[in-house]
């Protein structure tokens, strides 16, 4: 079965109110082109699952697509807080369901493996487990008396991840290997949509079957979007675009500036290629491209 869709078609598979898990970690490998398309299609009331994230969450919150964010951390690292996310949580427009990184991983694994809970020592003695005592339950092992946290399943409707290559059947390769936590959300998700830098012949998977990351039965749809993680990185092809992060943060200090930035450099352009063009085009691509070694 040919699973290749245009990104507009793939984004249309996401229905309002879905629980959507976003791949990548912090400034690395987020499915930004897909996120932009969700914004352009005006999705509403999404719940985002984003273990450690920044720009993707901030965009979706800014566009009013989001009701709830389930996360362990949202920031632009050394470049500061994620401004729209911060204000939306502070003002109560968006509900933050907050866990630590590993508590989220454990909840996703419980969902992925059909277990009532996964135990961990993560979170013991902190205020984090008290935030959600029903989903991160403090328990005691009856035999050893050891304390542990029982993390209940976090089911995901759709996982969106960005990868390097896929064939038309939906076999996917993260090149050179999967480093981030995308497997955790993919395994927990009812559906998985993958955006890739390039569609390659099926034969290239047969030639190097040890390098395949997800087989076709994990993947529900594939969309080809070169530079599709921009402005986050896609190691080893390109790094994140620091200039975009800076300009975005600066614009966010003033609503009018942000509106202009949003229309001209973010949500306005009607394709991902046009979006890249609006952010410097070839010059930007050359700046973020990693040297091949």
């Amino acid at each position, binding site marked *: 079965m040919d699973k290749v869709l245009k990104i507009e078609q793939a984004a249309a598979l996401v229905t309002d109110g879905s629980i959507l898990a976003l791949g990548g970690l912090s400034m690395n490998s987020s499915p930004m082109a897909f996120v932009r398309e969700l914004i352009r299609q005006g999705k509403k009331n999404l719940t985002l699952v984003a273990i450690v994230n920044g720009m993707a969450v901030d965009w979706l919150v800014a566009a009013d697509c989001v009701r709830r964010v389930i996360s362990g951390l949202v920031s632009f690292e050394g470049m500061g807080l994620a401004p729209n996310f911060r204000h939306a949580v502070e003002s109560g427009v968006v509900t933050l369901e907050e866990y630590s990184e590993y*508590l989220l991983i454990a909840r996703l694994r419980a969902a992925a493996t059909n277990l009532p809970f996964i135990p961990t020592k993560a979170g013991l003695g902190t205020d984090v487990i008290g935030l959600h005592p029903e989903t991160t339950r403090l328990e005691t092992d009856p035999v050893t008396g050891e304390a542990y946290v029982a993390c209940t399943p976090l089911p995901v409707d759709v996982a969106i991840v960005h990868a390097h290559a896929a064939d038309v059947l939906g076999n996917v390769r993260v090149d050179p290997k999967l480093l981030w936590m995308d497997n955790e959300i993919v395994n927990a998700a009812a559906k998985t949509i993958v955006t890739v830098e390039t569609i390659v012949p099926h034969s290239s998977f047969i030639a190097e079957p040890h390098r395949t990351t997800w087989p076709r039965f994990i993947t529900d749809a594939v969309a080809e979007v070169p530079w599709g993680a921009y402005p986050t990185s896609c190691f080893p092809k390109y790094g994140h675009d620091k200039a975009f992060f800076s300009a975005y943060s600066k614009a966010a200090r003033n609503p009018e500036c942000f509106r202009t930035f949003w229309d001209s450099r973010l949500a306005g352009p009607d394709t991902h290629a046009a979006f890249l063009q609006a952010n410097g085009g070839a010059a930007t691509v050359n700046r973020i491209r990693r040297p091949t070694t």
Partner: protein
Amino acid sequence: MNMVIAGADCTIDELMVVTLARQFDNSTRAFNGAVSFIPVCAYLLARKTHAPELVWAASSIAIDADPACLGESTLSDSIWDGAVMLSNSPFDFWAWAQGMRYNTFAFRGAQIDRYGNVNNTVIGSYDEPKVRLPGGGGMADLGCMIPDIYLWSTTHSPKIFVEQLDFRSGIGWGDGGDHREKLGLPGGRKLCVTNLCVMDFHPESRAMRLKSLHPGIILETVRESTGFEVLLPEGEVPVTETPTEEELRILREEVDPTSMRLREFPQAEN
């Protein structure tokens, strides 16, 4: 650039890096998270001086990385060059963290209390925060898994070193005493290195205790800059040992020639 410390021929960032680096040895197996230039410099410096077998996983991913210089993010591939292994985040990293194959980590925090517990979640009340911070990320996890955890702060002030955290994102010595032990958690906070001083933890109460003052810093300054009462060591408070010329040369020329570590200091913002 930070001011040169009188009598030490180095700047405060250099003193902090060197002080931290001297804590590590060949049994140190460390990794780092976001915005962690000071500890990253310290791991690299230790490896290039007295601890050649020290393990450092750049961004928790790139084991034995040996970058020619540091990039602008400590959580990206800009510091992965020369790595011997790119390890997988969920399977390799979290298994090794829980199994104490990694034994060393370093935290900052928007707030730190006397027991070395940290807050990076909210300032103010959780439900109606004054400032919504990024979130604890792995703080709650790693504080429970990794035995040797170091704290650092480039801006020692009463706003950071507080009597009471607004939120405990990560556990240090918990409520003090044997709290960690009772929870079944390994190790605990080892040391806190700031721009003013070095502090360790009292072996019984586990409260923060002054260990040494940086050259030119007086006790009163530390007291005024700390929101809780800092315990004092017995006898006179020593001065933090200053870096050797060789340490400074390696840090400046080999570890961090583009001075990315200054990004952690307010005046270095650009």
